């Protein structure tokens, strides 16, 4: 899952990135409104965390521009202002949720995960298929109730496929959602991660549609 953090305060942006990355999410950072809008328009993010007080172009304008351009990415606005008017402006302009500074990092990551789940049309935080379960809150994967250790890339691939279960996902789409904007993208490595997941979780979980991609069929 790819997240864009649009935050001009470098320390806070770095803290956010560190936290979300540690939770298996792929994070890009934009330090001003113009960059945020450019990345939002050109990269397939799953969630955009948008500070309203951005330099060059304020967050509200970025939000309106993205929505008017047909971008439907889930957007969580961050505001340091007290006014409800700011939050209502944001929600009215198409934001999906808001968080006011200062906030608890745990609350932020819970909101981000909830937005990802809702976008995927999933209401529960734990996805299960056959004997495999995946807890989106902790990234904990279990087979027959036994915890399985996965690398962060493996978690990223599994999480994206679970969130998009029932839908065919191409290698390109997968790499778009697990690599950073300026990261080294190699769609061949996706096949490597999928093979490792099959070895660890069983070969039935992820199905390959030859030449087109992968799918996790209906989950509970």
């Amino acid at each position, binding site marked *: 899952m790819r997240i864009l953090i649009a935050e001009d*305060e470098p*320390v*806070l942006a770095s*803290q956010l990135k560190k*936290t979300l990355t540690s939770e298996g999410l792929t994070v890009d950072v934009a330090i001003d409104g113009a960059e945020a809008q450019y990345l939002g328009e050109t990269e397939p993010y799953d969630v955009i965390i948008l500070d309203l*007080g951005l330099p060059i172009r304020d967050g509200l304008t970025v939000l309106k521009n993205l929505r008017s351009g047909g971008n439907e990415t889930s957007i969580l606005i961050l505001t*340091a*202002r*007290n*006014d*409800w*008017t700011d*939050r*209502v402006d944001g*929600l*009215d302009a198409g*934001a*999906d*949720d*808001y968080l*006011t*500074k*200062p*906030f*608890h*990092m*745990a*609350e932020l990551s819970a909101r981000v995960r*909830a*937005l990802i789940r*809702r976008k995927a049309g999933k*209401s529960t935080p734990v996805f299960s298929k056959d004997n495999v379960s995946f807890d989106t809150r902790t990234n904990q994967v279990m087979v027959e109730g036994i915890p399985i250790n996965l690398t962060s890339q493996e978690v990223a691939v599994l999480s994206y496929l679970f969130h998009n279960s029932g839908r065919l996902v191409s290698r390109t789409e997968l790499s778009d959602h697990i690599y950073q904007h300026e990261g080294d993208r190699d769609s061949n490595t996706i096949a490597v991660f999928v093979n490792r997941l099959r070895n660890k979780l069983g070969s039935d979980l992820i199905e390959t549609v030859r030449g087109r991609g992968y799918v996790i069929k209906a989950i509970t």
Partner: protein
Amino acid sequence: MTSLRARAVTGGILWAVAIIVLGLAGLSSYLASQTQARFVEVLETRLSQAVVAVSNNSATTTDLESAIGDLVYQVPYSGQYWQVENDDGAIYMSPSLNDEQLPRPSGQRQGMTRSEISGPNGEPLFVIAQWISVSDGSDWHVQVASSLRRFEEEQVVLRNTLLTAFAFVAFVSVLAALTQVAVVLRPLNQLREEVSGRWEHDDGLEVDSYPIEVAPLVNDINSLMERNREIMRRSRRQAADLAHAIKTPSAIMRNELEMLDMSGAGVQDATDALDRLDAQLKRSFARMRADGTDAAIGVATNLDTALGRMERAFTALARNEGKEFAADVAPGLRVRMDQSDFEEVMGNLLDNALKWASSKVNLKAAQIDDGLIMIKITDDGPGIPKDEIPKATLGGQRLDVSKPGTGLGLAIAQDLIHAYGGKILLAKDEDLGGLAVHIRLRNVPAKRTD
């Protein structure tokens, strides 16, 4: 300071009194002199008649009486008299003297003399006398007299008539002054009504609809209103900038503390201190906002717009939490409150309701009578026990720490509502079973279209 109306009326009355006094004095003096001249002229004519009669009929008294035959000389004490005497001391007089004599001539034989004397029965008389020589060589003293009492009575009647006429003129003048004052002051009265009316609305006054004398004042009032709004906007912007400047570093510190906490370092005291700092900041900014509402004159919020925004925002937030949000807002309502303050109140209250609701939050707004609008927010959460309601609105008192928050939402809403003269009441909602927040605010009639 004395009112313009009182000044104008007092000035008008003083002016009318001055004109009446001067006019009355001048006119009555002129008419009195005219009357007096006429009186003397008539008497001189009577003297001429007597002189002619004496010249022709000096021989006998009977002839004189018939020669000066005016009827007024026949009636006793009629006020009109004549008396004639010759060198020999023979005296002839009008029957009206009833045998009482007018004063005898003094030694010197001057021409015509005029004098005022006391006549029969003490009656004041004006006398004209003259010595004449007739053809037989004898000298005659001829005098005619007329009562001044009647003349004075005529003067009194004349003065009274004039006084009545001038009193009427004075009355009409005062009425005219009052009418003029009303006409002149009408634009000012209109201005006063419009200023208090427009305070309730938003736009400035229309300068073109006032006379050019009042237009500069109208311009000044418009500038003052705009300046007030600008002061409020600027102070809010500064407060918001300050909040922004403080909160981001606070968020950074909080995150560092959380990471230290996860690594096992003891940071509870520091976290508590940061919590207090954040809560205090929030409270202070809310207080600054409530205090700043004094400058919020001439503001009104259209509930169609403001609650429409709230409805869209909270429908999205409720959906995030898998809850239901429903709004029922009567169209065309306006409250005397700055829109951002109103949204601050509604945001805090709806946020609280959504946080505590099990599945449902309702918002309702309606006009309950001419001057009042009732807004009701209800939820199906646990509500607040009756005895804890006062604590809930104190601020900083979290009744339940199981959910995140500062416990300031209700207090902030209450401060703002009170600042605008509204009322807020917490109760148990009979329908949904949770908390019901009732807000009463003054209605602002829709802006006039004329």
